[in-house]
């Protein structure tokens, strides 16, 4: 990083990478979204609410949410084995837990909502980008939501707290903190941290990430508005 805080990819410390979101990109899924977040290229598809298979997994009292985060073999530098890794299984779980607060599953007993995320190309922050796309895909599927979910990481690079750590920064970086919020309700629904922060840096990092989430939220909203209201489609 330069002395005046210009990062390896030219961004300021508080600047997001370029983000673009397209809504409704898949024909078979009930809802879908495609996000480019820096070099991340991620598809999210949603099915449901629909019947649960196998049936014994259905819950009489509530709908259930399932989430699968998967990386394409070609998405990373070294070809990835297509079978899901332990890392992907853990991320699937935290994504599910980040999305669930935004849904009203009690209204759909005995059903499942399936969220499938495919990372076609991975960069730093792929779980946040995946979550941003998944939330938009859920909205696109017409599923009632309390709020969107918007995610962005902050971290510590060269002793400074920076927004939205990219892949190069992550590898050299001192800390990475992915965060997701429900922007209107103001709750943090995903948070992880790898790396070392002082208590003060922890607070700054969290606030920085939340600032990023709010910017992402505007981009998510805009993408949905464009599809549903600008072009007159519905």
């Amino acid at each position, binding site marked *: 990083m330069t002395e005046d805080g210009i990062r390896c990819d030219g961004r300021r410390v508080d600047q997001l990478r370029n983000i673009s979101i397209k809504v409704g990109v898949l024909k078979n899924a009930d809802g879908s979204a495609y996000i480019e977040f820096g070099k991340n290229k991620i598809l999210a598809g949603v099915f449901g609410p629909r019947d649960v298979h196998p049936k014994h997994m259905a819950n009489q009292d509530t709908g259930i949410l399932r989430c699968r985060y998967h990386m394409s073999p070609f998405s990373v530098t070294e070809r990835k084995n*297509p079978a899901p890794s332990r890392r992907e299984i853990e991320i699937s779980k935290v994504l599910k837990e980040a999305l669930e607060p935004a849904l009203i599953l009690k209204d759909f007993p005995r059903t499942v909502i399936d969220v499938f995320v495919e990372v076609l190309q991975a960069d730093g922050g792929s779980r946040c980008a995946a979550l941003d796309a998944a939330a938009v895909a859920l909205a696109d599927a017409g599923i009632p939501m309390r709020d969107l979910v918007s995610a962005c990481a902050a971290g510590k690079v060269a002793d400074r707290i920076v927004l939205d750590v990219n892949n190069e920064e992550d590898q050299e970086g001192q800390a990475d903190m992915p965060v997701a919020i429900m922007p209107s309700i103001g709750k943090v629904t995903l948070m992880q941290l790898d790396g070392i922060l002082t208590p003060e840096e922890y607070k700054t990092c969290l606030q920085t990430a939340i600032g990023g989430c709010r910017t992402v939220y505007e981009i998510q909203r805009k993408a949905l508005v464009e599809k549903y209201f600008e072009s007159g489609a519905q």
Partner: protein
Amino acid sequence: MGSTILDQLRRDKITDLLKQGKRLDGRALDEQRPLTIETGVIPKANGSARVKLGNTEVITGVKVQPDKPFPDLGDKGILICTAEILPLADPNVEPGPPTEDVIELARVVDRGIRETEMIDLHQLVLLENKSVVGIFIDSSVIDSAGNLFDACSYASVAAVLSSTIPKYEIKDEAPVLVEGVTSKPPIKTLPVSVTMARIGDNIVVDPSREEEECMDARITITTNSEGNICALQKGGNDGFSVDQLIKCSEMALSVGTKIRKRFEQLM
């Protein structure tokens, strides 16, 4: 899986129309759906393509990395083709180990490229019997709407054509990347897969999902740039007459010629 009244009505309609030589979506019997091919869609991969064939959509990425040769094949590089139907592509697909349908899909795409000898694997040897270049061609179906065979095959071929092969040098019997030097893959011929369905007495090219649901049998024929037939796979729960099989080979050659022109534009 269940068959609704609407499904049944659609099938009747498809077969009725075919008796008049027509298809539900208005295509001629030997007409493919619109095909778009976009390459370079995954910049981190060594090659990549996004193919749309009607509403079927596939993304293929190519990874090139040094590897050990297979035993007894020490004078050849490694070529591996896979295919996967992502669960977001189809409401009936569930995550998990590949089904027999997906294994067949991947193996038919693989053979189409392997048996035509599209890539000269002998040129991918770094140190005989010890170190070779491996080419991994992984296809992900992201929207499933019929004829995944051709869509995956076209995306695989296009991704290979768009690839760059990094240069490796051997030091102490181990491959070392030479930064900034790449070459095109050694292409010998352009394979084109053409899939046809038999519905009653009619043969239709590039069946849609609706046509697949009422087809009697399926055939995939891959031809090469020299006009030869190089790989073939019959599928489905019924058969073909010999005349139909010969007609299919002719259709595969004529449709293949058109598609091959599209590939040539990528070279």
